[in-house]
C-alpha cells in the first residue's frame, strides 16, 4: 500500500524541474533550438523587409500580426518549453495573454476609438 502510494506520488508530484513526471522526456535537441533561432531571425528580416513596401498600406497590420504571433509562439512553445511542460503552465500563460489582449483593446477602445 505504502509503495503504491509512493508510486502515485511519483506520477503526480513535480520534480525539481517543476513539471509533472514524464513531461520532460521529449525536450528538443540543441539543433532544434538552433533551427528555432534561425526561423526567428528569418521572420524578423521578413518583418523589416515588408515594412519597406509602402503599397501594403493597412494590409501590413494582419501580416505583421501573424509574423509576430508566430515568433511569440516559437519562443513560448520551444524555448519556454510550453509544448513539453505541464498543461497548467500553458493554460496560465495563455489566460494571462488573453487578459492582456483584453486590456489592450479596452484601453484603445476607451481612449482611441470612443474618444473618452
Amino acid at each position, binding site marked *: 500500500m505504502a509503495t503504491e502510494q509512493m508510486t502515485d506520488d*511519483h506520477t503526480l508530484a513535480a520534480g525539481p*524541474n517543476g513539471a509533472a513526471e514524464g513531461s520532460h522526456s521529449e525536450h528538443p535537441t*540543441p539543433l532544434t533550438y*538552433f533551427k528555432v*533561432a534561425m526561423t526567428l531571425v528569418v521572420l524578423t528580416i521578413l518583418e*523589416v523587409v515588408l515594412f519597406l513596401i509602402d503599397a501594403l498600406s493597412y494590409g501590413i497590420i494582419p501580416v*505583421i500580426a501573424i509574423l*509576430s504571433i508566430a515568433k511569440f509562439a516559437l519562443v513560448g512553445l520551444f524555448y519556454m518549453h510550453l509544448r513539453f511542460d*505541464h498543461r497548467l503552465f500553458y493554460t496560465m500563460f495563455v489566460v494571462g495573454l488573453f487578459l492582456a489582449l483584453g486590456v489592450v483593446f479596452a484601453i484603445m477602445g476607451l481612449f482611441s476609438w470612443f474618444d473618452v
Partner: protein
Amino acid sequence: MAQAPTTPPAVVHQEEHEKTTTGLNHKKLLMWAFLASDCMFFGTLIATYLVYKGKSKVGALPEDVFSIPVTSVSTFVLLMSSMSMVLAYAALRRGSLKGFRIWLLSTILLGSTFLGFQVFEFYEFVNHEVTIDCHEFAANPDGFSPFEAGIAGDECTEGVDEYEGTHGLTPRTNLFGTTFFTLTGLHGTHVTIGVIWLLGLFFYSFKKGAVTPARHLDTDLAALYWHFVDVVWIIIFPVVYLFGVFEGFPT
C-alpha cells in the same frame, strides 16, 4: 547478519519531489503567474503607446529619431541571447556544467550588448541633432518631416544658409517621448534585472552542488524570465519601431 537500514530507492525519489496540491512545483507555478501578470503590465503600456501615437503636437516623432538598422541588430542580439539561454539550460540537463557556464556567460554578454544598444539609442534620442540646409528647404519643403519643417520655419531666416542644433527627445518632450521611454525603459529594466539574475546564477554555479542536472529549477526560472523579455521585445519591435516609420498608411 543484520544490515543497517537503508532508505529504499522509491522513498529517496519521493523525497526529491515536492508534494503540492497541484502536483507541480509552486515556485515554477508562481513564475508563470508572474509572467502572465507581466503580460498585462506590458499590454497596458503598449496600448497607451498606441492610443497616443500620432497625437504629439511638438518635438521629434518616430520617423525623425528611429534607426531601424540599429534596432534590427539589437533585436537580433536579443533573439540570439534567448537561444544561448536555452542552450545553457540544455547543457545543464545534459550534465555539462562547463557548457552551461559558457552559454550562460554568452547570454549575459548578449543581454548586456542589447542594453548597450538601448543606452546608445536613448542617448542619441536625447541629443538628437538636426541639420537643415535652408536653401534646400526653400526649394523643396515637402522633402522635410513636419518636425524639421517646423524648425526650419523658425531658424531659416534671412541670410542663414544652414541650421544645426540639438532638438532632443526626452520623456517630457511630447506624448511620443513619454510613452516610448516608459515602454522601452521598463523593458530595459526587465532586461537589466535579467542580466543581474543570470550573473548571480553564473557565480552560484561555482558553489559545489548548487547547480546540477537534478537541481535545475533555478536555471529554469531564470530562463523563463529571460525568454519572456524576448517575447515582449518581439511585440515591441514591430509595434513601436516598424509601425513608427512605416510610410504606407494613407495620410
